[in-house]
C-alpha cells in the first residue's frame, strides 16, 4: 500500500516532467534543422552504452548524462571487479579461496553480500541458501555437464547444505566454512552489481540509466525523455508462439529481476530438470510456478527473492510478500500461464493476458 502511494507520486512527478519536456522539445523542434551543430543545446545529455560479458552472462549498461561515457566505463570496471571477487571458478576470487581453504577474511563487498545472504536465509526459512553450491555442481548446472544425480548422492550432499553452519565473525570479516560446505553468492551477485551501478550513476550525475545483467534489469531515474521505463517481463514459456513477454512494467528507480525454470534446464528420460534447486530436497523446485519477477528498489533483495519465491510456490510466496509488502512487489507466472501480480503493481503493469491482483 505504501508503495502504491509512492507510485502515484512518481506518476504525478512524471506528468509534471513530461509537461516540462514538451515545452522544451516543441521549442527546439522548430529550428531543428539538419545541422549537427544546432542540435547540441546546452541541456543536451550525452549517451553511452557498453556491452559486457561477465558473470557468465551478457550485460548491457546504458546511461544518459554529461559524464555518461565515464559512468558506463566505471560500471564496466565495477562489474569486472565484482566478478573477480565473487566468481566460484576464478582461483583468485575470495569465494574460490574460501571454498578451497575453508576460511578467509573477506573484503567489504563480499562480507556485505554474505550478511545479506544470511538475512535472506533467515527470512525465507532457509530457502535462500548459498551453501546449495555442491548440489548445483553435482547436477552439472555449474559446468553444463548435466546429469540427474543418484538419490543417495543427493542425500549425502544435502547434509552439508545449511547456511546456518556458516560462521562469520562480522567484526573481523572472517568467514569459516565447516568441512564439505561450499558457498556461491551467485544468487544475489548480479542484483548487488546492478545496485552498485546505480550508485556509480549517482556519482557521475547521470540523469537516466538502465542496466540489464543477463536479464536482471535495474533502472535509474526516468528515461531521457522524461517518461517511465517500460520493462517487459519475459514469457517463461520460451517456446510458445506468444509474444516474448507477458506484460510491461512502467517504472523508475527500480530493479526488475526475473527467475524461472526456463533459463537453464536439461532433459533426461523425457523429464525436464531446471536449475533452481530446492535446498531442502536437493531437487529442482516444482511448485507450479514457471517464473517469478521481483520489483524492488533493492536489486540485491530482488535477485535473492526471485529464486526464493520461485521455490516457495504461489501461496507461500504471496504470504511472504504480505510480510514485506513495503520492500517489493512480485509478478508470479504459473505453469499453466496464469499471472498474479501484487497490489503495488496494479497501476504499473499492463498485459495482454488475464491478470489476478493479489492483496
Amino acid at each position, binding site marked *: 500500500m505504501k508503495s502504491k502511494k509512492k507510485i502515484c507520486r512518481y506518476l504525478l512527478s512524471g506528468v509534471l516532467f513530461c509537461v516540462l519536456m514538451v515545452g522544451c522539445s516543441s521549442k527546439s523542434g522548430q529550428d531543428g534543422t539538419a545541422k549537427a551543430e544546432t542540435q547540441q543545446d546546452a541541456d543536451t545529455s550525452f549517451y553511452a552504452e557498453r*556491452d559486457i560479458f561477465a558473470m557468465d552472462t551478457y550485460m548491457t549498461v*546504458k546511461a544518459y548524462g554529461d559524464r555518461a561515457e565515464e559512468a558506463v566505463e566505471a560500471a564496466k570496471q565495477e562489474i*569486472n571487479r565484482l566478478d573477480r571477487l565473487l566468481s566460484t571458478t576464478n582461483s583468485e576470487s575470495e569465494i574460490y579461496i574460501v571454498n578451497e581453504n575453508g576460511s578467509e577474511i573477506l573484503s567489504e563487498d563480499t562480507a556485505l553480500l554474505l550478511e545479506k545472504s544470511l538475512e535472506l536465509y533467515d527470512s525465507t526459512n532457509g530457502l535462500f541458501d548459498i551453501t546449495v553450491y555442491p548440489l548445483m555442481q553435482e547436477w552439472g548446472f555449474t559446468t553444463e555437464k548435466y546429469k540427474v544425480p543418484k538419490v543417495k548422492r543427493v542425500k549425502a550432499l544435502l547434509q552439508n547444505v545449511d547456511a546456518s553452519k556458516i560462521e562469520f565473525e562480522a567484526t573481523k570479516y572472517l568467514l569459516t566454512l565447516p568441512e564439505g560446505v561450499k558457498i556461491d553468492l551467485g544468487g544475489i551477485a548480479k542484483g548487488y552489481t546492478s545496485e552498485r551501478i546505480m550508485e556509480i550513476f549517482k556519482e557521475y550525475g547521470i540523469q537516466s540509466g538502465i542496466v540489464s545483467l543477463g536479464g536482471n534489469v535495474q533502472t535509474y531515474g526516468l*528515461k531521457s525523455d522524461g517518461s517511465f521505463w517500460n520493462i*517487459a517481463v519475459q514469457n*517463461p514459456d520460451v517456446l510458445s508462439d506468444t509474444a516474448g513477454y507477458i506484460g510491461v512494467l512502467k517504472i523508475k528507480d527500480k530493479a526488475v529481476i*526475473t527467475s524461472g525454470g526456463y533459463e537453464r534446464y536439461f532433459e533426461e528420460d523425457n523429464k525436464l530438470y531446471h536449475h533452481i534447486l530446492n535446498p531442502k530436497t536437493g531437487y529442482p523446485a516444482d511448485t507450479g510456478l514457471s517464473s517469478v519477477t521481483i520489483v524492488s528498489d533493492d536489486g540485491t533483495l530482488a535477485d535473492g527473492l526471485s529464486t526464493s519465491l520461485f521455490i516457495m510456490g504461489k501461496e507461500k510466496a504471496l504470504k511472504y510478500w504480505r510480510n514485506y509488502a513495503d520492500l517489493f512487489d512480485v509478478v508470479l507466472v504459473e505453469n499453466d500461464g496464469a499471472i498474479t501480480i501484487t497490489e503495488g503493481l496494479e497501476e504499473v503493469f499492463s498485459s495482454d493476458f488475464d491478470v489476478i491482483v493479489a492483496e
Partner: protein
Amino acid sequence: MKKDWKEIFFILPAVILAFGVVLGFRLNMSGFVPVTYHEKEVVNEPTKESEKDSYSGNDNSSDNNVSNSDLKNDNSKDNVTNIKKLKYTKEGTWKDGTYTGSGTGFGGLIEVCVTISNSEITDIQIISCEGETQSYLKKAIAVIERIITAQSPDVDMVSGATYSSNGICTAVIQALNKAGGNLKINPLEKNAVQNNEKKSSNSKKKENNSKNKKSADGNGKPADGVYSGSAVCEQFGYTINLKTRFKSGKAVSIYGLKITGNKDKANKAYWEKAWKPMVKRILKTQNTDVDAVSGATYSSNAILEAYQNARLKAVGTEKSKDKKNKTDVSPSPVILLPDDNDNTQATENVKDGIYLVSAVCEPDQRMAFSAYTLMADVTFEGGKCISIDNFSSTDESNKNYYLKAANGTTEVEGVVAQILKTQSVSGISAVSGATCSSKTIRELYIKALNEAGGAVKEDIVDDSETSPENTPSLPPMASPTPGLPQTSSLPENNSFAASDMLIKDGVYTASAIVAADEWEEFADYNLTADVTFAGGKLVGIDNMVPEDTSNQGYCNLAANGYGSNKGVIQQLIDRQNGDVDAVSGATCSSLALVQIYKNALEMAMGDCDENIYNKSN
C-alpha cells in the same frame, strides 16, 4: 567446458532454434537501440525493390517472407485483460500511409511495413527477414500483434530475457518515425535521423563515382599499386571502404575492409558475411561480374562496387588516387591545432557541393580508445564551407567525444563553428577533452576542401593511404596553452627499441587458423582481422571476421576478455609482443589472435603486405 558460457541459458532441444539463438545472440546484444521517439518528420522513402534484385541470384529472403495472411492467421488470440492498458505518451498523430522500417532480429535484418490509417497502427507486415528461424518469426508476429493492440512498440528492456526480440520493435519505431507522430525525442536520436538522411548525400557522392566510371572505363588495364575504393550500401546507408593491390594488371589482394557511416551495428553481420566470399570470387574471376552473397546481397554489391571503384582508380590516372588519411596525434587539453596547411584555406576555386569525407581519429598515448574512422558531410556553397554535419564513425562509443568536438561546450566553441567562422584551418582551438576528435574534424574539413578543389598542394595529401607502408606525416606541434599539461607523444618521439621502428604504420589484414585442440569440438576455421600499427606500435585489432560466424562470440571473448581474463588485444597492446595469456573459455581463438598479430607484424616489418586471401588460395 569451454563452450559453456555460450549455451548457458538456452539448452534447447531443437537444433535449429539453438542455431538461430547463437547467431542472434551477438546481433541482438549489439543491436540494442535506445527506444525513443523523435519529433522529426522524415519523408516516407519508397522501398527500392528494383535494386534489391540486382545481384540477388542466391537471395534467400523470399523464402522467409511472411505474408499478411500468415500474420492474420495468428491473430485469433483475443485475451481480455482486467488491467488497464498503458497510456502511452504519444502526442500528435501519425500521418496515414504505409511506412517501412528495419531492425535486427535473431538472424539479421528485419524490414517491416507499417500501415497507419485514421492515425492508428492498423497493420504491420514483415517484408523481409533474412536468416530468421521459424520460431523467431512466430514470436515476431506475436510482438506485432501486441504492438497493434497497444498502439506502441515501446519497451526498454525485457526482464528475465538474456536477449529479446527488440529488432521488430526497432523496425516498427523506425517506420513510425517516418509516419511523423510528433513524439518526444531524446536529442541524440536526432542524429540517427540525420544518418538516415545521409543516404541522399551519399547518393550524390555516388553519382560522382559513376561519372568516373564513364571517363575511365573499367576495361582498361589497372596500373600496379594499391588503390582504395569505396561504395555506399544504399539500402542501409553505410560505406564500404577497401584497398586493392594490383600487380601486372591483376588484382592480387583485396583487404583493409573499413566501414564508415554505419548507423546500425547490426549491419555488421551482413558485410562480414559478404566480405570473404566476395574477395575470393573477385580475386578468382578478376572481373566484377560475380554473384552476390546469399543473405547479404546489399553488402555484397557494395563490396563489389567498392572494388570497382578501386579498380577504376587503378585504370584511370593518378588523379583519382586516394586522398591522404593524415593523422595527427599531438595531445593537450587545449591547444591550437597545428597550422600546417595554410594552403588549404578556402579559395575561389572551391566547387560547391556536399563532400562525404572520412579521417582516422587516432588516440594519443593518454587516450584509451582505439583508432576509429570519423565521417562527415562537408557542404560548400558559394565557395564557402557552410556546414559540417552528419557525423558518424566506425566506433560509435566515441560519439560523445566527436560530437563534443564538433559542437563545443558551454565554454569552448565547437570546431565546426570555428571552421565555418574562419573558413580556415588556422587558429582552430581543440575542444578540451575531445582533442583527438577535434583534430580529426579539422582533418575532415581539409579533405573536403581538397576534394572540392580548394586545396593548392595536392601532393601533400595525395597518395598516402593508398599504401599502408606510408607513415603518416605529422604536423608540427603548436604551442600549448600555458598552464596546461602538455604531453608530447608524437609517434616519432616515442622511445621504442630500434627494431620496433622497422614496423611500418598502417592497417594490415591478417588471418590465422583457429585450430580446435583435443578438447574442442568445433571445426577449424579461418579468422581474419585488421591489425593497426601506428607510431611503430600495435594500437588495435579490429574487424575480426571468423570464417564461421557462429564463432564470433568466442572471437569477441578472446579479443576483449571478461572478468579477470584480460582480452588478448589489450594484452598485445600492453606488451607489444605475442607473449600473452589466453582468455579462458576461448583459448583457441586467443591463440589465433596472437598468430594474427604476428602475421601482421611480419607484414608490417617486411615488404610483404599482400593479404591472406592471396596466400590461402
